[in-house]
């Protein structure tokens, strides 16, 4: 070692008194057309963040992706380039994205341009034109992007895992094929827009350097006339996980294996959720977890293993992911199963729980310390029918969870016997290793 001095050892300073979790000022209004607007004040920088989420379940993935790709391509009065330029004038920008639950419009701009951004947003929502030329261009771009995704191991592994865990549920396929995209015509997008891009059950979140009531007024002024007609479509609950043979997806020549495991989980509002979150942290949900300390810091099998609880409208699932060296794929699976099993069978230590608890509570504070963080959390909560106040409730549950609660949650949700396991890698080199630990079914990578 170098640079050392010979002084007596120093003692880690204690933490100061915990600073109370303070929620920012907020206001909410439901407009006559069914749109809910939530405004949150954080004046730190003179900007405003915008998130508009609309329920978008059961839309065919190709149509959903194409609608998001072309929603901003022009209205009856402005071209796509004009929309972008007008937004830029007030330091703004908008982008659209979809997942199996929601269509989401996101953006940020100078707060002085809030009214203009909302006006342009309203124009897109009420009179998006899906011009044939732009749709054709964006169709090709989307096809290219899908082809690129199909060369990414992470995407291929997730695709295989979703298919395996969701079976016939709409969540099973989330990326369309190029051919499906090529078949989407402008008329289909216009019809889809008429049916599904409407304010009923949509939530607009505005966060920034603006008084909440003033933001609500601005939103009402711009979006009050957005037509409320349209369908509301529900999603069936996700099916329970069915553990079975390990699915090995062959990617010849892969220099790493993508290890994925799915385990059961519960929604944010479930009484078990806080304990499950803590159990997940102890297992693999943060750097100081057993899994990371084992397969990265002790054994060097991987760079960044991680596990998290993913919440969707129709159900929640715990996902664990690691990219591991090909030669140690079996060994990495062994350690993963061991760490899951150890937590499921043996209660964690009090100190270990306390560390995870502090992390969970501290990162809640960090998460709401920026405009963008507040916007993301408010919008995600709203998607589950929750409001920012839930943060305080969740913090209280995290603070209360006992070792026994967390041990119970681990037994119920983290047991390796309940896991669905998918590995994407070079089957010739890893099938034998994996076969020592589990029954293995191999199939080729299908984009």
């Amino acid at each position, binding site marked *: *070692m*170098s*640079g*050392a001095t010979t002084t007596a*050892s*120093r003692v*880690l*300073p204690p*933490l*100061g008194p915990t*600073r*109370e979790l*303070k929620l920012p000022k907020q206001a909410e209004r439901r407009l006559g057309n069914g749109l809910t607007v939530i405004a949150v004040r*954080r*004046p*730190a*920088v*003179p*900007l405003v963040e915008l998130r508009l989420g609309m329920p978008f379940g059961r839309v065919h993935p190709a149509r959903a992706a194409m609608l998001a790709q072309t929603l901003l391509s022009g209205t009856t009065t402005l071209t*796509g*380039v004009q929309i*972008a330029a007008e937004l*830029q004038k007030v*330091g*703004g920008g908008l982008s659209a994205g979809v997942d199996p639950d929601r269509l989401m419009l996101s953006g*940020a701009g*100078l707060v*002085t341009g809030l009214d203009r951004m909302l006006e342009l947003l309203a124009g897109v929502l009420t009179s998006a034109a899906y011009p044939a030329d732009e749709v054709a261009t964006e169709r*090709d*771009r989307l096809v*290219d*992007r899908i082809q*690129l995704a199909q060369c*990414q*191991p992470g995407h291929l592994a997730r695709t295989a895992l979703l298919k395996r865990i969701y079976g016939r549920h709409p969540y099973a396929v989330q990326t369309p094929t190029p051919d499906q995209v090529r078949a989407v015509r402008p008329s289909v997008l216009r019809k889809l827009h008429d049916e599904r891009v409407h304010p009923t059950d949509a939530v607009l979140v505005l966060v920034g350097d603006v008084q909440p009531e003033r933001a609500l007024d601005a939103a009402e002024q711009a979006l009050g006339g957005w037509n409320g007609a349209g369908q509301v479509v529900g999603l069936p609950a996700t099916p329970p996980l069915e553990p079975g043979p390990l699915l090995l997806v062959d990617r010849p*020549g892969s220099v*790493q294996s993508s290890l994925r495991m799915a385990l059961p989980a519960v929604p944010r509002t479930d009484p078990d959720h806080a304990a499950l979150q803590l159990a997940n942290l102890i297992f693999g949900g*943060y*750097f*100081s977890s057993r899994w990371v*300390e084992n397969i990265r*810091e*002790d054994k*060097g*099998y*991987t*760079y*960044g293993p991680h596990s998290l609880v993913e919440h969707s409208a129709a159900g929640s699932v715990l996902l664990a992911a690691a*990219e591991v060296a090909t030669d140690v794929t079996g060994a990495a699976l062994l350690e993963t199963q061991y760490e899951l099993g150890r937590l499921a069978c043996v209660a964690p230590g009090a100190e270990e729980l*306390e*560390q995870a608890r*502090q*992390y969970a509570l*501290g*990162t809640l*504070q*960090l998460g*709401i*310390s*920026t405009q963008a963080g507040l916007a993301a959390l408010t919008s995600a909560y709203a998607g589950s029918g929750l409001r920012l106040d839930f943060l305080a409730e969740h913090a209280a549950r995290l603070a209360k969870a006992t070792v026994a609660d967390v041990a119970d949650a681990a037994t119920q949700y983290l047991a390796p016997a309940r896991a669905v396991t998918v590995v994407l890698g070079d089957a010739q080199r890893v099938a034998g290793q994996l076969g020592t630990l589990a029954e293995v079914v191999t199939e080729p990578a299908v984009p």
Partner: protein
Amino acid sequence: MRQRGRVRVERVSTTRRATIPATRYPVERLTLDNGLRVVLTPDRSAPVIGVAVVYDVGIRSEPEGRTGFAHLFEHLMFQGSENLEKLAHFRHVQGAGGTFNGSTHLDYTDYYETLPGNALERALFLEADRMRGPRLTEENLRNQVDVVKEEIRVNVLNRPYGGFPWLTLPPVLFDTFPNAHDGYGSFADLESATVADAADFFQHYYASGNAVLAVSGDIDVAEAVELVERHFGDVPARPAPVLPRFAEPDLAAERRVSYTDRLAPLPAVASAWRVPDPIGDFAGYLPYAVLAEVLTDGDAARLVERLVQRDRSVTSVGGYLGFMGDPFDVRDPTALLLQAHLPPDGDVDKVLQTMDEELDRLATDGLADGELARTQARMATHLLRDTDAVLGRALRMAVLEQQRGEPGLLNELPRLVGEVTEESVRAAAATLRPQRRATIEVLAGAEQ
């Protein structure tokens, strides 16, 4: 002290434009007796803090035969230190409710934490402890070589366009080892690294006089100064090494290289042109930052409109300053980059030719009415948004202090960007000639 934290700066202009606002984060600077420079920037809008320590050593300083060493050494700084066992750093930060990381750049290496405000002293203790000395052991070194190899496999070897263009374009634009080599490192170099190499590297570069500490967020300045003195005051004084010059002459003729990426489904291309010294000639450099955005930021930007929408000759196009996308924390020599992904039958020559045409048109005809102002307004939003995160302020200010002695420049950037003139953007565009261009082309090698 409670800071509102910003003022509006009114601008006078002949075209309609959004007023470019500014922040007014306060800045306190001090230097300890051991040479450690300290920047404090209080902001009590949220009960969180950012702590960053930046060492003035990066990829460009690693020795020949030791590619990737600066990054490998960054990993070793997390493996325990004078009073901390392996894993202790992670546990102490996260057990205080915080997050941490480090990253290696061309000219510096940073280490940082974001934490609830009650963990300030703990964070200072942790950073001071490893500034005194990391635990450099054979076991930790071998473990982290393995981890770094997996990092390289994830980010470069096992994915399409890995290292494009940040690792593949510098060797085309530059000739000398510091500027041209692979900063992630070859496996052979990584495997041959020794504990003695690491000890030397620490001794030479990780000196108190070669570091900047920045603390941002919910702090009281007087209390923070006292805590900084308490924990860093007795870090042994070592002077900064002489800052090397990495200057190289500009290209005299166009350079172009291509390679096949066996995982890439579609062709891609990136070009780089040298730009003025970001520090020695900041006024000459800023117009290039604006130019990159005029060309590529959003659907109304010139190259996006032309190449993506009109010609459909590319799928996406991007432009930025610095190989690591770091316009304001890199030293000379650096570059403006334009990169594009092409459709399956894409023609790289045609794309490059169109880019030349658009640069010509910009240099000759100038900008459209309002084009510059809207680009500057959007840039202001991006800059302000980055500073909203408490850690963003600590990191940026630490590097601005280290490279320029001017952490308060962070407050000025939106305004300075807003003052860049049309004339200077046109002049910048006029320098991006084909004969000064280095180009790397990716040939698609994946089966369709």
